């Protein structure tokens, strides 16, 4: 696999990060080419969420480099990155339960180039169910609807890079289907996506590249087909480790 010739939208170089005294990322190298979909896989505790937090600006790396569109951004604040075109949808609760659907969507305009009306239009066009429930508190929506609302941010904000943390967690298969359709649609419109999943199947179906993390490092990277064979071994600890030892 060779990286695209244009500047990758995201490049991580020997990234280290820790919570207090406990190091979680132990030298991560990762490249996300512009406009591509990269699936980030790995078992629990590998550091996937931590990696997303480091990229999105919520965790300052202890060493190494984070380059977004070629700019070194270690330590940049999350809000600046969000406004610059980075959209992060964290795992678990990604909406404000005490605000209505409309109010949640209003907040999208902080990061979007589009105005409020257009954001609403896009969201409601793609998710008619949200339109029906526009005055309802987000916390009273079903799990799937809440995730749709969160994804509506990606639709509205026109990001250059979308970070998704376990988007399919806890959702019914049909909903997951819809979700991945949206991801595909976004990718088709030029948005780069880094999607973290514990259960590889769906993600690999839509990804152009896949990376596998274990023990705080990326231990394999390549096209889905290549990586898929090695996955069980990588998850369970057997197999070669690539990258720095």
């Amino acid at each position, binding site marked *: 696999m060779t990286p695209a010739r244009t500047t990758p939208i995201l490049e991580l170089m020997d990234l280290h990060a820790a919570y207090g005294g406990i190091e979680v990322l132990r030298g991560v190298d990762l490249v996300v080419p512009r406009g591509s979909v990269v699936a980030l896989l790995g078992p629990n505790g590998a550091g996937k969420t931590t990696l997303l937090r480091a990229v999105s600006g919520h965790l300052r790396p202890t060493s190494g480099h984070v380059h977004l569109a070629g700019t070194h951004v270690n330590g940049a604040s999350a809000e600046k990155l969000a406004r610059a075109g980075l959209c992060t949808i964290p795992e678990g609760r990604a909406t404000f339960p005490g605000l209505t659907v409309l109010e949640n969507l209003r*907040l999208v305009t902080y990061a979007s180039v589009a105005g409020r009306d257009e954001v609403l239009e896009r969201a409601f066009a793609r998710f008619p169910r949200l339109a029906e429930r526009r005055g309802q508190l987000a916390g009273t929506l079903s799990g799937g609807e809440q995730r749709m609302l969160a994804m509506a941010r990606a639709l509205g904000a026109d990001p250059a890079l979308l970070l998704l943390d376990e988007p399919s967690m806890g959702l019914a298969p049909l909903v997951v289907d819809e979700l991945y359709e949206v991801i595909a649609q976004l990718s088709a419109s030029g948005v780069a996506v880094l999607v973290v999943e514990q259960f590889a199947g769906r993600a690999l179906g839509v990804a152009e590249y896949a990376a596998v993390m274990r023990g705080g490092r990326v231990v394999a990277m390549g096209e889905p087909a290549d990586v898929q064979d090695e996955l069980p071994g990588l998850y369970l600890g057997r197999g070669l480790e690539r990258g720095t030892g």
Partner: protein
Amino acid sequence: MSALLGYTVLGLVMGAGYAVAASGLVLTYTTSRVFNVAHGAIGMVMAFCYWELSAGGLVPGGLPAWAAVLLVVGVIAPAFGLAVERIMMRRLTESPAGVSLVVTVGLLVALIGLAQTLWPPTARPVEPFFGAGGVRLGGVLVTYHDLLTIGVSLAVAAGLYLLLGRTRTGIAMRAVAVDRDLLALHGGRPRLLSSLSWAVGAALAALAGILLTPIVQLDYYELTLLVVAAYAAAVLGRLRSLPLTFAGAVVLGLLQSYAAGLRAAIPTLFLFAVLVFLPQVRLRSGGIRGIAAVPVPGPRRVAAAGLALVAAVGLASLLLPTVQVSRLALGLVYATVMLSLVLLTGYGGHVSLAQFTFVGVGAVTVAKLGGSPGWPSPLALLAGAAVAAAVGALVALPVLRLTGLYLALATLAFGQLMDKVVFQTAFGLGESLPVPRPREFAGEGAYAVFVAAVFVVMAAGLLALRRGRIGRMLVAMRDSPAACATLGLNQRGLRIGLFAASAGMAGLAGGLFGGLRGTIGAADFQVFKSLPLLLLAVVGGVTSVTGALLGGLVLMLLPILQSEVPALGGLVFLLVGIGAVSLGRDPGGAASHLFRAGRWARSLVVRPPAGPVEDSTDAPDSRVETEGMSLRATP
């Protein structure tokens, strides 16, 4: 009929005043999850600033009223709110309600001290705006100032409603209290929004203070405490609905106007009723952020330390002059009261704003029983504890389902009710009751040793409780009531028992207090005295006996310090307030610092502390130039 109209009009005016105060309170709560007990105090300081600018010496000739108002409400108050947010409130959003309450109480105390220092007491008359003219409605003169107050309150309510409900900034302000990080991911600026909400909140407090001053006149306490009536209105609005808050304030004003006889008790009754009867909003209680456990010493350590303390007190009583011995005894009595807070707040996690009321119940019981032949003094002390415990259990019943902030407010309401209704009758008017001491310990020195001994026994009992099954259950209940429910723990029984035990301990201390003083009066147990008690309990350390001892001694020393170093004056309050603010974030308080120092001194290898997540949301991005940066590929 015209009388009714007259009262209605007056009630509306009063309600308008409460509404402005309550709106600001609701604003800061919705946008920061901090119930700002010091809201009224901010208004008070700003009212003094207004006076300083318009009639004080600062500006020769004085600024015209409109200019002074604009300057204070538009510039000084917001700047002050920004400073408060920056220094104190930033991290409080995630703290448990108890900690944020204590910090704002600390701010209240600090502000009173500040006002007393900057504006020493003297006559400062304040006239209403537009002089004495007004409009006649229903036989009552409503001054233009009153009309202005009503108008302002409507405007404020409407403005806030629009701000919080319709504008993106307002929506983001509500979001930032719920999940700062998520808002940052949206591209909102949490820091800016927090600052904005406190700035606007302070401006509203200033507005309320300035509008109410011509009626109340400039006074450190009156304006500060006025807001307590507004709490009831704010709680009626569930601390988030502005229309309901406004309605609540109006109803409160009307009730006060119609029922002049019950005037004093109405805000309290209202608050209590609202808290008990309205369905409680599921408040986000905020996670308990790793309260570092304070080591619980074993029985032998406790016995040794206890004996040492009693011996030390005995020695002191022989060497020191009488007045110092009395003071030491008072400090120990306060420490005993603080033990009750260790149980309730430290172990149980509940904040009580009326602990001194239970002290009063115990003291009054001992006073009434004392001297009667059937009740030798030690027995009377226990009786005082029992009565206080019973009252504590009674109070716990209606408020069983309340937690955190609402529970604290309920204790406040209870304390006020006791003040105005029960204590007044118990003491008669202006009377004081004599309280006997145990005959064996009648002398000052002997009594001090007696108090020390009681303190040690209670502390030992408390620590034994902590070490045992009940202690573990209490801590479990504090950390996660939900988990306890799944375990089948009898939480109701445990909670009632907790309140009763804590009240009983305070009541026992009350008997000691009465005996030390010889006579007690209604003024000794006012709700207002419970605030410094709570404050210093937290500053000293509400999770440990050592903390209680520290807190008790400092509480006793404070007024002495304030009196003997008059230059310090209000600064003493200020320092206590600041101390509470900085130490209040760590419920372990000063004592835990001591423990930590001790542990560090003993250890050779310092383990890397596993602290909370390093969070770069608030870090200045000085190193990265992200201005104008965009990841989006330029076409």
